[in-house]
């Protein structure tokens, strides 16, 4: 029978104890130096899952936060630009009112026109502002300039080639913010309400609905006049006849005067001229050939027929008896239905698709109206300017509206930023509770572990000695 020495059993137990305590010491050291309570998933499986979930949540919040901070400058820039634009519109408006008070000379008016053109240029540049590599006022088509200067038709025509969609950025799990504005809603209207005319020629809206944007011109021209060949009279050969529809001509053989409609009575010169100009009260002109006048009383109705053009070049005859004449501007696609029955003279009409004009066209249109001077006749120019001014006012309102929207978005971003930062901090705190070590208690544990280890080692050493003595003795 062999003896089994006791010291080996003691040794095993002591060694196991030392190993345990050493592990505890190492662990405590790791915790203190890393600040982490959970160093490995096996330290606390539930805590690990929870801590990781919190970390992921926080990262999501931080991602949204970085989105918010990166789009704040975009909104800030848009706001600044629109504020500038608003200032320019105010300036433009003041200039227009000045020009309309009637005391300016031609040169002055030309100067104002130049200034207005410059304002339009500046606004156009603002409309095409870029931030980095994207256009701010293009809706979601940010890689091409939203406004292009088409200069189609007689009226300048700035076309919008962006879209009306929003560029959205996520600022939370279920919330997004729009970071851009569609330019056609900022600098122009895209919802037209009604059609307005200068009214010079007597043309008006017809039966069917109109469809279009911006401004349009209608040029009415007199082609033929009938009813003049009475009493030796005939139409003159010189140009200038602009009557349309029925105008009564009265020639007084007794006092040698002639009157067109309700216009001024004019004394017929001697000898009677081949081209005698009579003007009706509405400003329409009839040039008559009096050279064959018999000298007697003449009462006749002159009827002028004519044609309409949208560009002043291509004319199409129109039916003065139709209440539904369709006129299409081929360069813009704008379509009008006009009533021809009230047309009484030739001339040019400014047609406004109210609510669907942009500020660039409006201001340039005003400038060109001013330059064309009195050729329109002071009252029709005033009418034109008033129509455009209405649109300018609308434009200012829209711009201010857009600024309001931007302001609201900016507010929202700021409050989102605060909320997200708070949430991030909160999540960090929660995670810290789960994962981080309480330094004070960790250090304490470390000290205890060290003490225990020393104690175990000392005890172990004593036991060893004891056993050895037993064995020897």
């Amino acid at each position, binding site marked *: 029978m062999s003896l089994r020495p006791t010291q080996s059993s003691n040794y095993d137990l002591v060694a196991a104890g030392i190993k345990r305590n050493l592990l505890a010491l190492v662990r405590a050291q790791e915790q203190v130096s890393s600040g982490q309570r959970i160093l490995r998933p096996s330290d606390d499986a539930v805590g690990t899952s929870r801590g990781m979930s919190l970390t992921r949540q926080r990262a999501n919040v931080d991602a949204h936060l970085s989105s918010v901070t990166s789009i704040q400058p975009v909104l800030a820039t848009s706001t600044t630009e629109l504020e500038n634009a608003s200032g320019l519109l105010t300036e433009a408006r003041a200039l227009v009112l000045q020009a309309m008070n009637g005391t300016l000379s031609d040169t002055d008016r030309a100067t104002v026109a130049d200034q207005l053109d410059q304002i339009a240029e500046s606004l156009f540049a603002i409309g095409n502002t870029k931030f980095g590599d994207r256009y701010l006022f293009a809706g979601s088509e940010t*890689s091409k300039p939203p406004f292009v200067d088409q200069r189609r038709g007689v009226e300048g025509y700035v076309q919008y080639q962006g879209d009306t969609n929003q560029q959205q950025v996520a600022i939370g799990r279920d919330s997004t913010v729009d970071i851009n504005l569609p330019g056609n809603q900022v600098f122009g209207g895209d919802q037209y309400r009604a059609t307005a005319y200068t009214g010079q020629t007597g043309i008006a809206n017809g039966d069917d609905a109109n469809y279009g944007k911006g401004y349009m011109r209608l040029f009415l021209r007199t082609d033929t006049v009938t009813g003049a060949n009475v009493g030796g009279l005939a139409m003159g050969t010189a140009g200038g006849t602009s009557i349309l529809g029925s105008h009564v001509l009265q020639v007084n053989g007794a006092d040698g005067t002639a009157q067109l409609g309700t216009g001024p009575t004019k004394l017929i010169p001697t000898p009677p001229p081949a081209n005698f100009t009579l003007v009706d009260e509405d400003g329409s002109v009839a040039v008559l050939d009096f050279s064959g006048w018999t000298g007697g009383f003449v009462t006749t109705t002159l009827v002028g027929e004519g044609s309409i053009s949208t560009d002043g070049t291509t004319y199409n005859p129109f039916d003065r008896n139709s209440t539904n004449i369709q006129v299409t501007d081929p360069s813009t696609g704008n379509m009008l239905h006009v009533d021809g029955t009230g047309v009484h003279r030739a001339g040019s009409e400014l047609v406004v698709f109210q609510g669907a004009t942009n500020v660039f066209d409006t201001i340039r249109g005003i400038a060109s109206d001013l330059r064309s001077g009195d050729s329109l006749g002071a009252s029709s120019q005033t009418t034109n300017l008033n129509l455009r001014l209405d649109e300018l006012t609308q434009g200012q309102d829209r711009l201010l509206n857009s600024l309001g929207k931007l302001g609201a978005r900016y507010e929202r971003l700021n409050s989102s930023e605060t909320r997200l930062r708070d949430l991030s901090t909160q999540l960090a705190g929660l995670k810290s509770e789960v994962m981080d070590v309480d330094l004070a208690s960790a250090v304490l544990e470390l000290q205890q572990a060290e003490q225990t280890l020393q104690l175990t080692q000392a005890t172990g050493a004593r036991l060893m000695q004891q056993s050895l003595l037993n064995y020897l003795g």
Partner: protein
Amino acid sequence: MATLGLDIGLRGLRAAQTALDTVGHNISNANTPGYTRQRVDLDTSHPTRMRGLLQGTGVETDGIRRITDALLNKRIRSQVSVYQGLDVQLQGMSRIEDMLSEPGGNGLGALFDGFFSSVAGLSANPGDSVLRNSMVQSASSMTDEFQHLSTEISDARSQNLQELQYRTGEVNRLANSILNLNQEIAQAEASQVPANDLRDRREQELRSLSEQVDVSFTEQGNGAILVSVSGRVLVGSQRVHELSVESNPQGEPELRIDGSNVPVQVSGGQVGGLLRFRQEFLPTLEAKLDKLARNMILEVNRAHSTGTPESGGFTLLSGTQPVAGANTNERLAQLVRSAGLPFDVQEGRLYVNMTNAATGEVRVDSFAIDPNNMTVQGLLQSLNGVEHMNAGLDSLGRLNLTADSGYRFDFSARLDSNPNDYSTLGGGRATIGTAAHGPYGLSNGGTLSLQGPLGSSTVTFQSSDFADIQNASAQEIADVINSDAGMNSSGLRAVAVGDRLVLQSQNEGSSESIAVMGGSMLSALGLSAGTLAGGNDNSVQVEAFGRYTGSENRTLYYEPVGDGVIGTTPGLQIRVVSADGSPVAVLDVGEGYVPGTRLSVGEGVEVSFGYGELSGSTGETFKQDWIADSDSSDVLVAFGVNSFFDGDSAGTIEVSQALQSDPNRISYSGSGASGDNGALRRILTLQQASVDGLGASLGDYYGQVVGDVGFRISTTQSATAVAESLVQSLDARREEVSGVNVDEELVNMVRFEQAYTASARYIQTVQQLNDTILSII
């Protein structure tokens, strides 16, 4: 004698006395023939006194000692197997745990966060090429980590195999040693020489063997110990039957004995532990990481493949996933469902947008995909059916798509801004639409007679013109009419508007007119004889605006109610209905409506109508697709078309090569507009949204995987600690120096029995009390 507080009384010791008495009886009467050994019931009390009957008899003392030793050794060996088995698994698992580098900030979790952060950054400024680069970089860092984890697991596997082979060698070495010792012991004891040293050495070897495998032992009469593993003999009476590691048909290692084909089941010892680690822990983790990678690829690619890059579309796209199959014909004839693609193609619909680069006009086409009935060839045909699209398979079996010159395509969920294709509503052409929706139940030989601007004609429908004439599609019927000479020369044509057939004059203008004359198929088509339609000089311009915000794909039809002029006729309306006829909206376009004004139809969609004439009585209509998911079949993901990630597992996931070489190709736009970021926003939602395939978000699933590993390790740790302490205490037990006095030995044993019983009762009490505590925690 001390009293044990909880349970022990005098009775216990009396029971001990009885036991001794009986033993004494048994041994002293061992040679009496016919004497039967008595059983001892420890709880019975017999008043007898202790008699030191067994003192001084050295053999008996030795015998009891040896019985105790033998039983203890048996226990120790099996406990050693359990402990070593657990320990080796714990080591393997811990190494893997280290590799995960969680929950510290260096694992896959932080790289997820980095990826999503870069997506968020780019979504706020999709045009910035530095941010695009950043997104590709972050994505690559993440895929690198996936691959790294996958490689580590493979490495663990090969290390595991090496260990297995080494340990198996050890087993065989130990077995041989035991065999030799068996022979020596048998020899010695046959010649009455004590063989205690040999026995001790053999015990060491047996213990070492138990550390490697869980074995069972049988002691022979001659002192030899036979060893078997899982019922198969390892150390026999004559020779050793060696253990070896072989590969099974799946390429996984299996243990064999003596080269037999039947595998040996080892569940304990280091070998058992290594096998369990390899067969349970590693595959489970690997499968979960693969599942995570797959779902990441699937979800991100779903968003990216239906996105558009800055260029607004593609002139050439190659898929990255080849269709399986050796030769070309086989490939083409395969059903899409079984084409060997890593992701499944579902039943659904694919929308294709074709943009005319010069005019910017976009045509939206779509076709249905049924993977159970469509072959690869069929898919190519459908793709080729899209105007200006060309589709084929390259030599490796990958899908190749090109657009005709001057065109580009994309698969984004666009809202068609000009839905009135062919101007079938308020257009210049004379138009008559069928009241019924397809498919139409025609019959062979059925007729339709129409009057066109240039003459009349009757078309006859043959079965050969249709896949199934009783379910004739609008497109099929339109094709028949358009290829009919008579119809052509009468100045007629037909188009399919969604699933409805619409007849038109070929030219525009108010002088055009068409009429329905007759025919046997009138009611099947929903046409009435005598219906007359004239052309218009004006064509109504229909424009759509906005973005569809709903979650389901829908097709809507716009139908005028009555006839009239837009913006002019009082009360003129357009009804918007679903394909099944259920109403969606009613739009007022009569007097008071300013043509060109945007009307809200619903769910983010607006439509405007220009000036023109509408004729509801002749069935004018157009269809509009509201697309939420432009590829509900996942066919693009399956073929790897316009993918962001390629691969299908943790080991193969990578950012697409095309994007790595040019990050400016990222398809960030969801609507096709260059400033839209819809695809990126969709990817960003993956950070927190639950993914169908995982039942949790990507991040949370990963957290569960890591938590799982942690949990397995911590439970194994406590099991190992307990097992280790058991081994130690059993070893300590065996080391005791006692038993010289047999009486004392037996008394000790019985005393122990009762101490254990008392301890058990104590523990039971403790646990009851602590259960109560835990319930209030």
